[in-house]
C-alpha cells in the first residue's frame, strides 16, 4: 500500500490545483427489478488535493452512498471513480488510500485507545518503532495522550470522536472521509470539534470529504460544498457561491432563509438578466451557471432577507433611494442579533427582511404599516427552472 506521506502545510496555491478524487457519471442502484432503488444518478465531481469538501443534503439524498462508494464499502453500478489518478472501482476498502471516520465512531471496544489508533498501521505491517512513534504523534495531535490506555467505553463521546479521527489519520491516507461525525455530539462540543477538525485538516494537509445535513456546519468548515438531493448533485461551489448564488430552488431553500419571487425576464446577456419584479420594478439579476432562460420567460428569483432593507428605516442606511418592492408588515420576530420583519407584498407574496439590531434599539415598524423595500446590489438571483 503505497500511501505517500502528505506534506503538512503544503496546501497548493489556488492556481496549482491538483485533482485528488475524480468522479465521473457515477451511479448506484440498490436491489433490482421492481424494488430497485437508485441511490445515486450520474454524479460527476472532482475534489482537489488538500481541500475540505462537503457533501450537503437531507437524509436519503445519496451523500452517504457517495461516501461509501469512495471508501469502497459499496461498488458503483456505473461510472468512474479515480483516487489520486488511479481507477479504484472493484478495489475493496482495504486497497484504497482512504480512511473513514464513522458516524458512531465504530471504535474497537476490545482494544485500548492506543491500539485503536495503531490498528491501521499494524494491518499495513509497518515496523513497531514507526507504529509507536506515529501513535504517539496522533495522540498528541488530538490531545489524547493521557487516555492512551483507556478503553473506548471509558472515555466521553467527544474523546471517542477524537480517537476515531486519530485512528483514521494514523495511516496517512490521501483522503479522509467523515460521515456526519459530529451529529452525535451536543451543540457546544460540536462547535469545538468543528474548529478542531478544521485545524487538523490544515495541519495534515489531507483531503477531507465531509458528509453532513447541517448547512451551517457545511458553510463554516468547507472550502467547497456540493448540495445533493435525490441522488444528484444540484450545485457545487464555495460556501459563498452556494449561499449567494443558489442555482436551484432546492439549494436556495435548503441553505439559509430565502425569499422566492416570480419575475419576468426582460433582457438577457450571458451572465445577467434584467427582470421585472411583481411590483413592476426592473432590476439586474444574476443568472445561474448554464443560463437556460430567455427573454419573456417567467422565472423564480431569490433574495436573501439580509440583502433587503426597509426604506426609511433609520437603522438601515439612506432613507431615500432604491425602493423596488412594497408591502404591509405582518409581524416581527426578534432573534437577538437581528429581527425578521415579515411582510406581505402587494401581490400577496410573503417576504422577509432581516434587520440588524443595533445598540440604538430602534423599534421595528409596527404591524399593518405600509413599507417599501430596497435591495443591495446583486441581491437578485435567477434560479434554474
Amino acid at each position: 500500500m503505497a500511501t505517500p506521506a502528505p506534506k503538512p502545510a503544503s496546501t497548493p496555491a489556488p492556481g496549482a490545483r491538483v485533482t485528488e478524487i475524480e468522479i465521473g457519471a457515477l451511479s448506484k442502484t440498490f436491489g433490482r427489478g421492481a424494488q430497485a432503488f437508485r441511490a445515486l444518478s450520474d454524479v460527476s465531481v472532482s475534489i482537489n488535493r488538500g481541500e475540505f469538501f462537503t457533501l450537503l443534503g437531507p437524509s436519503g439524498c445519496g451523500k452517504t452512498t457517495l461516501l461509501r462508494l469512495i471508501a469502497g464499502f459499496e461498488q458503483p453500478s456505473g461510472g468512474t471513480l479515480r483516487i489520486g489518478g488511479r481507477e479504484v472501482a472493484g478495489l475493496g476498502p482495504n486497497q484504497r488510500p482512504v480512511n473513514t471516520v464513522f458516524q458512531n465512531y465504530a471504535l474497537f471496544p476490545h482494544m485500548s485507545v492506543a491500539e485503536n489508533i495503531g490498528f491501521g498501521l499494524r494491518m499495513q505491517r509497518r515496523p513497531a518503532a514507526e507504529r509507536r512513534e506515529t501513535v504517539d504523534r496522533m495522540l498528541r495531535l488530538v490531545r489524547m495522550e493521557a487516555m492512551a490506555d483507556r478503553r473506548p467505553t471509558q472515555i466521553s463521546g467527544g474523546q471517542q470522536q477524537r480517537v476515531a479521527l486519530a485512528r483514521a489519520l494514523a495511516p496517512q491516507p490521501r483522503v479522509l472521509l467523515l460521515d456526519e461525525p459530529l451529529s452525535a455530539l451536543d451543540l457546544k462540543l460540536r462547535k469545538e470539534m468543528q474548529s478542531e477538525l478544521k485545524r487538523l485538516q490544515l495541519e495534515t494537509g489531507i483531503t477531507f470529504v465531509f458528509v453532513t445535513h447541517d448547512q451551517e456546519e457545511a458553510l463554516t468548515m468547507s472550502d467547497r460544498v456540493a448540495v445533493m438531493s435525490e441522488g444528484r448533485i444540484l450545485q457545487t461551489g464555495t460556501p459563498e457561491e452556494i449561499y449567494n448564488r443558489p442555482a436551484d430552488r432546492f439549494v436556495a431553500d435548503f441553505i439559509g432563509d430565502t425569499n422566492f419571487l416570480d419575475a419576468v425576464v426582460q433582457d438577457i446577456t450571458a451572465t445577467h438578466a434584467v427582470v421585472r419584479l411583481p411590483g413592476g420594478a426592473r432590476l439586474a439579476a444574476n443568472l445561474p451557471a448554464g443560463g437556460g432562460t430567455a427573454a419573456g420567460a417567467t422565472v423564480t428569483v431569490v433574495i436573501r432577507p439580509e440583502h433587503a432593507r426597509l426604506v426609511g428605516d433609520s437603522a438601515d442606511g439612506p432613507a431615500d433611494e432604491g425602493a423596488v418592492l412594497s408591502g404591509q408588515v405582518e409581524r416581527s420576530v426578534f432573534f437577538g442579533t437581528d429581527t425578521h420583519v415579515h411582510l406581505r407584498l402587494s401581490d400577496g407574496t410573503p417576504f422577509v427582511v432581516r434587520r440588524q439590531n443595533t445598540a440604538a434599539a430602534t423599534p421595528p415598524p409596527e404591524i399593518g404599516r405600509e413599507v417599501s423595500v430596497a435591495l443591495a446590489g446583486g441581491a437578485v438571483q435567477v434560479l434554474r427552472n
Partner: protein
Amino acid sequence: MAIKQTSAATPAAVPERHGHKWLLSAPALIILILAASGPLLIVLVYSFLTPGNFGGVVWRFSTEAWFRVFFSRDIFDPEVVSLNHAHLAIFWRSVSLALQTTVICAILGFPTAWFIATRPQHTRAFWLFLITIPFWTNLLIRTFAIQEVIRNQGLINTTLMRLGLTDAPIQMMYTDFAILVGMAYVFLPLMVLPLYAAMDKLDIRLIEAGYDLYASRWQVLRRIVLPLVKPGFVAGSILVFIPSIGAFVTPRVLGGGRNMMLGNLIELQFGQGRNWPLGAALAMTMLVLVVGALIFYIRYVGRTEDAGREHG
C-alpha cells in the same frame, strides 16, 4: 443527587417490595433442592457404603468404592493393587470425545451462526426455528436415525458400494467417529444459539472499520470478529462440553459396548454391575471432572477477557 431524591420520594414502598421479591424464585429453588442437591447428597453418601448382593447398598461405611474408581485388585490376591486402566481409559475417552465434540460444534457452529446473523432481520426467526427443530424429536429416535445412515448396510455405505467407490462397507458404527458424529449433531444447536446471540450484538460497522484500516478478511475475522464473539464461544463451549462428557444414549447406541463413556460406565454399575457405591463414586468423580474443567476453562479463557474488563 437525582437518585437520592427519587428514593426519598417513595421511602416506604420500595424496601417493602424488595423484601418479598425472593419469593418469586422459590419454585425454582424448591425444584433445585429436591431434584439436584438432594439426590447429589444421596449419591455422595452411597459412594461411602458397601454394595448389596443384588444391587442396592448395605449401610456399612467403606472407602472401597472410591478405591476401585482408580485402582483394581488382583483377582487371586486382593493385596496386589494396580491402576484401574479400564476406568482411566474411559475417563480419558470421555474427556477427549467431549473436547472433540466441543471443537467440532464450534467449527460447524460459527459459520452457521454467522449465516443466520447476517440474514435480514425478519428472516432470522425462521432460521433460528430451523435450528431448534431437532429438539422436537426424541434423542433416542434421532440417534437410531444416525445409525440408519452410517451402519454397514446404511445409507452411506450402500450408496458408496452402488457407485462402486468401495467393495466392502466402511466400518463407521461402533467407533469413536460414530460417537462424535452423533454428539456433534445432538449438541450443535447449543453452540449455535449463544454464538448467534453474540454475533447479533456485533456492530457491522466495526467490520467495515477493520476493512477500512487495511485489514484482510482473515485479519478482520481474527482481530475483530473472533474477540468480540468470544463470550458466545465460551457460553456455547460450556453448554456443549458438560452434556457431552456425561453423554449416555449416543455412545450406547452408536459406540456399542466397547466404546464406553463415563455415563455408560456409571449406568453399568447400577445395572448389571450391581455395585451402587462404585457407580455413585464414579458419578461424583465425573462431577469433579466437569467442575474442574469448567474452572480451568473460565480461568484460562477468561484471562484475556479480564484484562479488558479491568478498567471497565
